[in-house]
């Protein structure tokens, strides 16, 4: 009884708290990284006053947002106004419980016995990811509706339509990976990459491309950031939010970014595996935790790089891109990969 309690409740809880702490730190400092990198690409230095090279800027932002007055529009639904940001933020955090940060390891000998570096390994992990990430859309719609502002409403609806449309090609891209891996469990997918000796980005590069474009659209980043574009709708669905609720929307966006980067890493870039896994598994290069976070960092850098460079799509062009181009491409990709797996990789 005791060991069941320990194994099924206490240890996962501790792990989850550690994971949440790490993820929230990454989310906070990814705002710093975004501002710095955006600044460097724009021939200027980003924040550099709050702490050395601006490292304490997220803390300054946090303090500012917490101490701000929480303005609620007078004729809005107060409960829905509060529920909106929560519904966007919580599923993102929940999903970090199924993402594998590593295999079994003792983290450089810090722990007495090896522990699995993920909170739990659900054998339908991928479906859980897809389902929970769709919950965030409700939060956006509620946020737009509860603001009692026609601009916000339009922004919220557009954002919802965009996210729903881009989930379908994303799903097909993921199906392509599932064909290659043979399992829905995220840990199994990484291990399949280890067994086949190469990251799934190589056979599935079109799937990776589709997944990446959909990831950018899911997180409402440039070039798909019309719902929150300042010059078009004055910040869209989070126009009427201030203080901590705005902070929740803001953190939810970055948490979604980190989440989608993590899933992309797990599915395509080999999770916690070092490059050339069949050769380097178990060697000096195979450091626990390092490769995973390095790959997530590369993903985040790509997202920031896109924001610095591209203009944004108009809404109808965005929808056309998702439905007319990415979806057929994704379906064809699935068919092609299935044929490849049947006749080449057997």
């Amino acid at each position, binding site marked *: 009884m005791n060991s069941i309690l320990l194994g099924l409740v206490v240890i996962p809880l501790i792990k989850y708290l550690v994971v949440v702490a790490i993820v929230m730190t990454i989310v906070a400092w990814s705002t710093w990284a975004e501002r710095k990198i955006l600044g460097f690409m724009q021939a200027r230095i980003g924040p*550099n006053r709050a702490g050395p090279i601006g490292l304490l800027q997220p803390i300054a932002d946090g303090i500012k947002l917490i101490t701000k007055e929480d303005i609620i529009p007078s004729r809005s639904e107060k409960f829905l106004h509060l529920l909106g940001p929560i519904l966007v933020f919580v599923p993102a955090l929940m999903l970090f419980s199924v993402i594998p940060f590593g295999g079994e390891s003792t983290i450089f000998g810090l722990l007495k016995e090896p522990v699995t570096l993920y909170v739990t390994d659900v054998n339908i992990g991928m479906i859980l990811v897809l389902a929970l990430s769709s919950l965030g859309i409700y939060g956006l719609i509620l946020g737009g509706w509860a603001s009692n502002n026609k601009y916000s409403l339009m922004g919220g609806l557009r954002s919802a339509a965009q996210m729903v449309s881009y989930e379908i090609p994303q799903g097909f891209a993921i199906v392509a990976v599932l064909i290659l891996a043979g399992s829905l469990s995220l840990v199994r997918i990484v291990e399949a990459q280890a067994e086949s000796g190469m990251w799934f980005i190589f056979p599935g590069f079109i799937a990776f491309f589709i997944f990446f474009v959909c990831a950018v659209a899911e997180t409402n980043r440039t070039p798909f950031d019309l719902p929150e574009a300042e010059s078009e709708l004055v910040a869209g669905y989070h126009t009427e939010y201030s203080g901590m609720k705005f902070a929740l929307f803001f953190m939810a966006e970055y948490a979604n970014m980190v989440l989608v980067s993590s899933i992309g890493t797990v599915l395509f870039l080999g999770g916690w595996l070092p490059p050339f896994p069949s050769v380097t598994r178990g060697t000096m290069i195979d450091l626990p935790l390092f490769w995973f976070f390095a790959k997530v960092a590369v993903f985040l850098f790509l997202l920031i790089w896109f924001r610095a460079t591209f203009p944004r799509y108009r809404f109808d062009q965005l929808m056309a891109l998702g439905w007319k181009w990415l979806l057929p491409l994704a379906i064809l990709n699935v068919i092609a990969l299935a044929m490849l797996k049947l006749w080449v990789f057997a």
Partner: protein
Amino acid sequence: MKEKQSLGRWFRNLLLIDLFVGLYTSWKHMFRKKFTVQYPEERIDPTDRFRGIFKFLPDVCISCEMCAKACPIDIIYIEWHPEQTPEGKRKKVLDRFDIDVKRCMFCGLCEEACPTKPLAIYLTTKTYEGATYSRDEELYFDMEKLHTYTGLPDPPAEEKPAPKAPVPAPAGPDKALEKPAPGEISGSGEGGGGKE
């Protein structure tokens, strides 16, 4: 009208070359020298002709009121009264020379109109930090303030690299600014000094 695309162009379209070219441009800039100045620790020194806040030399002024006439917004208020010097000559004594700086647009027409050498009123003081907390008291410069204003905020308590001090009283701005004035009137002529 769509022209027929060549094969090369179609291929470049497929491979998203245009997007990669854009990405490469912003990547390049990430590693270049940044074009920013860390104000207030570093300051850019304005150029010599920079039209900053005024400096007035009452000893040089001959109360001709050309600057007041040239000012597009009429913010220079001059009052003078004639006096007899002991030798029997008439001279003008300047009573009041005020400028309402909060309405000034720093166009420099008063400086151009001033006929004296060195200029009695000039803007090339390289000061631009004239922000104050109250408009009416501190942004209405009377003769005294115009003469002594240096334009810098109070130096901070601890040691910071001192910004460049403004040029106190140039002997006369650079030659190129001179233009034929209607008769050269030098500062120490029959106008004498103003109030001392």
